[in-house]
Structures are given as structure tokens and as C-alpha cells.
């Protein structure tokens, strides 16, 4: 489209300026128009109105025995509810385990403040975790073994988490498993998606899902 450089520069008649201006004007209005037209198209791809979707789930955990885990869905995420046996709870405090963890004290914002403790839960035995590996989002599998032999293993790239969802060092996953806001409505009924009274944890603020 460029003119051949070897040809002598022609004298530009006055109308040439006018034409260049009109061309510029046309091109810019076409560009602006194109961008405006693109808006509704891209807008249609944005997430839909979710007011009708449930923001919380209530789970009855009365039949959950020690060592058992159930998986429920909350806002499209798998949520693990695990009833940890006493020896598994003891293992969480084991000094040799803690040295092998990346963030043993849950310093990164991956959980509500009311679960920022050694067992990462409200009640020590029952833990609620988002079952989505912080590496690339696969669902880790629970492996139960004796003492330190219990852990979550991610099948995709081998990331490993302890039974409080804390990630081991030198694993591809950078952070501990996230914990959703939850509260006990009754002694045996957990509501996922709602904070206990007086708490205002915002799940969208966590480091990484």
C-alpha cells in the first residue's frame, strides 16, 4: 500500500489534505463504531445473572463417622467435609510434618480468620476444604494411612496436602487448600457460604482458588 519510494514526491494539491482528513475521520469513526458494536458481543460472554443461584448449602454431618469424607458442591466448587480421627489430628501437630509444610501456620489468606489455627477448622475434628488443588485446579484424592501416612494427593501433578489442606514443600501447588466461609447452624448442620455471627470473611479475597 505504500508508494514506491523511487517515484518523485508529487506536489500535493490542496484537496489531498482534505481527502486525508476525510479518510482519517472515516477510519476513526469505523474503528469507534467497531469497538462499540463489539461490546454487546463480548458482554454476552460475561457471567450471567446469578441471583437465582443458591449462595449457601446446608449439610447434615450427623452420620459422618471418623475417617469418612463427603464431597458437596458450593458455587461450582467441590467442597470436602472430613471427619478426622484422633490420630490424624495428632499427626497435624507432629513437628516432623510441620517442617515439611510450606505454610504450616496458614499465614497466606486462604481461609477465614476463624479457621486460622493448627487444625484449620472451627471444630478440630471436622474440616471443610475446597477440594481444588491450588496448582491447576484438579480435585485431590484422600489417602488414609497410619499416622503420617494420611494426606490428600493430587493426581494431576503430584501435589500433596495434609489432612488440614496444608501443602507440602517442593510441590507444584503454591498455597494451602482454600477454606470456604461456613458456620454451624445446629450442632450437626453446617452451612457453607455463611460466616459465623460477627465474622465478615469475604471468600473472593483469598489468594487463589
Amino acid at each position, binding site marked *: *500500500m*505504500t508508494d*514506491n*519510494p*523511487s*517515484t518523485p514526491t508529487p506536489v500535493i494539491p490542496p484537496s489531498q489534505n482534505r481527502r486525508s482528513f476525510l479518510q482519517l475521520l472515516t477510519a476513526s469513526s469505523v474503528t469507534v463504531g467497531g469497538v462499540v458494536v463489539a*461490546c*454487546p*458481543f463480548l*458482554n*454476552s*460472554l*460475561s457471567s*450471567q*445473572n446469578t441471583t437465582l443461584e443458591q449462595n449457601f448449602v446446608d449439610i447434615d454431618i450427623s452420620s459422618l463417622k471418623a475417617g469418612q469424607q463427603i464431597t458437596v458442591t458450593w458455587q461450582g466448587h467441590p467442597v470436602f467435609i472430613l471427619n478426622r480421627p484422633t490420630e490424624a489430628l495428632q499427626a497435624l501437630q507432629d513437628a516432623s510434618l510441620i517442617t515439611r509444610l510450606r505454610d504450616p501456620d496458614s499465614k497466606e489468606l486462604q481461609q477465614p480468620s476463624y479457621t486460622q489455627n493448627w487444625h484449620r477448622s472451627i471444630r478440630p475434628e471436622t474440616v471443610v476444604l475446597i477440594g481444588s488443588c491450588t496448582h491447576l485446579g484438579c480435585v485431590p484424592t484422600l489417602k488414609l494411612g497410619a499416622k503420617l501416612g494420611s494426606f490428600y494427593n493430587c493426581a494431576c501433578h503430584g501435589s500433596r496436602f495434609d489432612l488440614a489442606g496444608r501443602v507440602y514443600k517442593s510441590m507444584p501447588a503454591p498455597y494451602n487448600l482454600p477454606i470456604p466461609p461456613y458456620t454451624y447452624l445446629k450442632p450437626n448442620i453446617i452451612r457453607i457460604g455463611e460466616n459465623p455471627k460477627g465474622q465478615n470473611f469475604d471468600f473472593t479475597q483469598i489468594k487463589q482458588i
Partner: protein
Amino acid sequence: MTQDPEPHLNQVSSKKHTFSEWIEKRFPVFSTFRREYIQFPMPRNLNIWWAFGAVLCVTLLLMLATGIFLALSYTPSAEEAFASIEMIERRVPSGWLLRSLHMAGSNLFLVFLYLHLFRGLYYGSYKNPRELVWLSGLLLMLMVMMTAFAGYILPWGQMSYWAANVVIQAISSIPFIGEGLAHWLMGGSSPSDLTLHRYFVLHFAMAFFIIAVVFIHVICVHVVKSNNPKGIEPKTKEETLPFYPYYVAKDGVVIVGAIILLVLLAFFFPDLLTNSENYTPANPLETPANIAPEWYFLPFYGILQLIPYKFLGLLLSVGSIMVLFAVPWLDRSPIKSANYRPLYRIALFLLVLSFVMLGIVGKYHSHTGLIWLGRLALFYYYAHFLLILPFSARFELKRTLPTSLLDEKGHK
């Protein structure tokens, strides 16, 4: 602008290797674009009728863009199709806009297509050497009609369902192969989930086949060059104008007009061209009281009703399009433009009138008084192509054709 387009291409080495030159040597897109869309010689006397090709291209792009984005939110199953359309209308952000643009666009597509086709008939754009332009254009029209029909089924409302049922049942009247063909097109004995899947894929895939045939159509035009209102070929350079900026600007004005028409339809009259019955979910147990196709199929629907024999009706209905394919060979007159053919001009006016008449029959079929008027129109429709076109040239008064596209004063 009229210099040797690419003098540097012949040089062994050029000092300045720009990126565009690198591409150009391997894939001459820049020189081709310049030759076909900048310098391309167009007859200098084209009127507004020659803008509809460009308008149709823009409409096709609009249909493609809105269609792809609608397909992202649409579910082609008998269970969920209707609900997913409602979701597009109510819950998908800007979904209502995309859908009304797609619906208004489909109607305007057919409006422009009929105008484009009429232009070809009036100015004899199908005559030597433009036969392939005409044939590829008719193929495009058939493909667009098929796509429009398939698209109409997708909302899975009452009209969608019964349109699919009636049309496919009509196909079953073809002797020998009809039953099998209808069963194959339907995926069963009545419209079902399978039917919907098939027509969704047909609708979607056809859009891309149409683009391919548009390329063939445009290449054909660029090889033989555009016809013009005088119907004589330009012989000198003075009789032509470069495509840019003259016809880019002229087409641009008509395209803007078409866009205004489109948004008027989409924003202010979204219900004008849709049937409210199609906002009732498909019900295989109840046929709507007033079943009529979209306006652009009314003449063909009218023909189906005029003939008391099922297969003959189908034959004449489909034949009314098929006869157009033979027009370059049915028309024996060497004069292209109807401006110089007084008899043909009247005949063509009557053809348009009978086409509209057939459409009216399609719309108000219960009115028996229309039947004989309709049959007269149908007779004329075929007589125009099979009798008037081949024989009118003999009776047409000798008219002297202009010798140049420049007007009498010799204006440049």
C-alpha cells in the same frame, strides 16, 4: 494511484525489505487487494441497485457474528431449546440484542437478496459472459433459504415445530425416494430431538459453506467485471472508475442506510417480522390455527396451495426457483438492459406482480376467491420464463443501444 502497481516485484533485490514485501513475494495479498479492491475498474454509471452485493456481504458478516455468539448460549435439544432461547432473551447479557439483530438481519438478508436478484433480471446481468455469476448467485440464494428454514426451526416454538413438520412432509410426496428422504431429513416420523440437532448443525455449517460460495461468486464478478444500467461493456478507461474511492463511498452510503433499517427493525419493531405463535413451546399434539411461513417463503407456499396434487405442487414450487437457473439460456435477446427492451420491461413488471400475488395467496389461503387469481399468477410466472423470455426478442422493437458509458455530452 494508477502507476505500475508493483514495480519492485520485478527487481532482483530491493534494498528495503519491509514486512509487507516479504509477505507479498510469498502470498501476493497486497497487490491482489490493490488490483481487486482499489484500482478495480467499475463501470462509471452504476446506480444504487449495484450496492446490494456489498450490503449482502455485510449482512452475512452480521449474521455470522451474531449467530456464533447466539450458538454459545443456545442448547439444541427438544427439551431445552425453547428455554435456552428465553434465557438468551432474559438472562444472557445483551442476548436480546444479539437475537433481535440476528432475526432482523435474516429478514433483511432476504429483502436484499430479492432486490439483488431483481437487479440481475432487469439489467440482464446473467447474460454472456456473466452466466456463472448468475448461477453461483442462485446457488447462494438456495443455500440462504435452506439456512433460513433451518434457523427458523431452532427456537422450537409452535411455528418452528410445524414448519419443520409441514416442509418435511411435503418432501415425502416425491415419488419413490420421498418417504425415505423425509425420514432421513427428520430422523423419525415426526420432528424430534434428532431433527433439531440436524437442523442446528445444518444451520451452523451452512453459514460457512455460504461464505465459500460467496468467494466463488465474487471471483466470478471480478473476472467478467460488473454489468451496468446500459448493459454494454465499457471499452475505454474513461468509461470506468476505480473501485476506491468511488464505489467504496457509494456502497458505504447504502450500507449505512441498511444498518439504519436494521437497527430500526431490531429496536423499534422487533415483533413486526416474528410470529407470536412461535413464543409458545412446540406442542406435537396441537397445530396452530394460522400456520404460514416467513414472508420470504410465502410465494412458494402459495404455489403449494394452488395445486390440488401434492407432488405437482411441490414440483411447481421448487421449479419456480429452478427455472431461474435456465434464464441465461432461455433469454434469446442480445440486449442486456431492460431499459432498451420495452416489452421485456412490462413483462418483468408483471412477473414481480405475480410473485407478490402468489405471496398473498400464501398468506390468505382460506380465501377461495384468490385461488383463480393465484393460478393466473402462477401461469404467468412460468409463461414469463418459458414463453416470453425465449420469444420476446423477435417482437421487440429495434432500439439503438448507446455506444459508450459516458453520457451524450461526453462527461468524464
